[in-house]
């Protein structure tokens, strides 16, 4: 390829984009390998001897390990529930016409847009009365308010793309609707279900407000613990950044897997 000024500008622009998107992430990861002295150095050190001490410290800290475990349990359980409840609903929305369908849509979309603080207040009072504060269950259930709409939306989209001929043939063989759902729609819709499950996991893993309000000590999730280090005078920066890296790494990998669907997941499919 000949190098014109246009191509050079294009390359420079793209490099700038990559630097812009990766820099804060890089800065966190590099701080997680620095000693406290290197982090506190001014001007900042760009070249340093990496240390694994911060990671040793957090993996020895039962609080961090416990929090990551809690996050895993909660995100996995709520995702499983969302798929279990959402996939059949998506099947109905994709295949049937019935009254109130558009109202149902509206309700799902509203859930995507509502601030968690609106539900956090009443759920806090209800959980307090039911003695459910600081349990896995309360977070698993409340996370369904945003997971279920995501799963329903993405799966509906996927199920609609399955050709109806298959269903016709199955019906000639005498299959009922449940069998058709299980034998045709679930296997053929598997990619969409997987994408929706990954989104559901990412959103649950990343959530802070509900977790902050509805947990005390036993069920603190990873983001809650990471932010709890942010108090006092001498902040353990290396430890905080190592915890941040441990939290972000798994979801980043998941997000890269579904990167082609990122826009669909975040807009609930309004832009195709």
């Amino acid at each position, binding site marked *: 390829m000949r190098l014109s000024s246009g191509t050079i500008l294009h390359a420079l622009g793209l*490099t700038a984009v990559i630097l812009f998107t990766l820099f804060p992430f890089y800065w966190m990861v590099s701080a997680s390998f620095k000693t406290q002295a290197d982090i506190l150095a*001014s*001007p900042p050190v760009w070249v340093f001897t990496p240390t694994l001490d911060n990671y040793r410290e957090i993996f020895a800290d039962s609080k961090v390990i416990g929090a990551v475990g809690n996050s895993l349990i909660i995100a996995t359980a709520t995702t499983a529930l969302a798929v279990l409840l959402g996939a059949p*609903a998506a099947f109905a929305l994709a295949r049937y016409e019935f009254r109130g369908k558009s109202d149902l849509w509206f309700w799902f979309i*509203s859930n995507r847009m509502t601030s968690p*603080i609106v539900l956090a207040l009443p759920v806090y009072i209800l959980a307090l009365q039911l003695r459910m504060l600081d349990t896995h269950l309360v977070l698993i259930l409340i996370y369904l308010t945003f997971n279920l709409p995501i799963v329903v939306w993405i799966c509906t989209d996927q199920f609609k793309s399955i050709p109806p001929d298959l269903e016709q043939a199955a019906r000639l063989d005498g299959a009922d609707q449940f069998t058709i759902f299980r034998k045709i729609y679930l296997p053929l819709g598997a990619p969409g279900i997987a994408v929706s499950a990954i989104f559901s996991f990412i959103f649950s893993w*990343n959530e802070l407000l509900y977790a902050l309000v509805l947990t005390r000590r036993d069920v603190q999730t990873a983001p809650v613990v990471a932010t709890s280090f942010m108090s006092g005078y001498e902040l353990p920066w290396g430890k905080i950044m190592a915890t941040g890296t441990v939290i*972000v790494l798994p979801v*980043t990998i998941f997000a890269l897997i579904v990167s082609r669907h990122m826009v669909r997941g975040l807009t609930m499919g309004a832009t195709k």
Partner: protein
Amino acid sequence: MTRMTSQPKLRPNRGYGRWTPFWFLAPAVFTLFIIGIYPTIFAVVTSFRRYNIARPRDGFPFIGLENYISVLTDGTFWASLFLTAKFYITVLPVEIALGLMIALLLHKTGMGFLKSLARVTLVVPLATTYAVVGLIGRLIFNRDFGVANWFLDALGIGGLDWLGSQSGAFAAIVIMDIWQWTPFCALIFLAGLSMVPGEIEEAARLETSSKWALLKHVQLPYLMPGLTALLILRSADVLKLFDMVFVMTRGGPGSATDLVSIYIQRVGFRIFDLGTASAQAILLLVITVLLSRLYIRVLYKEVN
């Protein structure tokens, strides 16, 4: 059943009863009702009560519209709404402009490897846990050793006490939001650009060498639905914005970053005035529902 007999041709294609969709939908709808609608109704009821759990001796008496009156006359609540609007008006033009530039760079032919790499890295900010974005912000904008001040020094501008000053803290949360959400705009615009039929774009390129004319007359119509989606979704997101700001500034210093979700959280869970906080939350919900209506009316009509 009457509908089915009036359209006899459809009958062999259907083969399900009237209640079949109900059984598939019931578990999801029932669950969402219990965890979504019931608490919302509970919040409405709470908003008509004096409900301060820090003072349980007062009981929780019904007080009519008193909470709503005190919220609507509360200057701080209005200030937090205005600040949220100011935040939206500040971040959005930058995110749209940068996002469009990035999308055009990614849409341009050539630079295959660098382009796919950039495309992939765009996902990183979007997936980063919002609370961790706040932690990174605390590190980057630290007054004494933050890298932001090092950049300013390198540019010959003196360092700032970012998180310790009113305008600095606001600027800091604006920058972190721009970092996290510009990729979202870029991806939406990129999707719009790729909708332009290849032949039309080719033909237009032969007609004019002006990139601006191409953008305005050929590509812009395809970008409009995405732009509308952005305007509405980002406004809902800003009304929801809590995690990153809470971690970075807790709404301070003073009330410099006291966005509406942060303020309601403080009234509810620091002052424990759940009655007032519920009234505020219900007002926020009303705003959101209006936005959702707009979103559906404008966008889903076009898609379907």
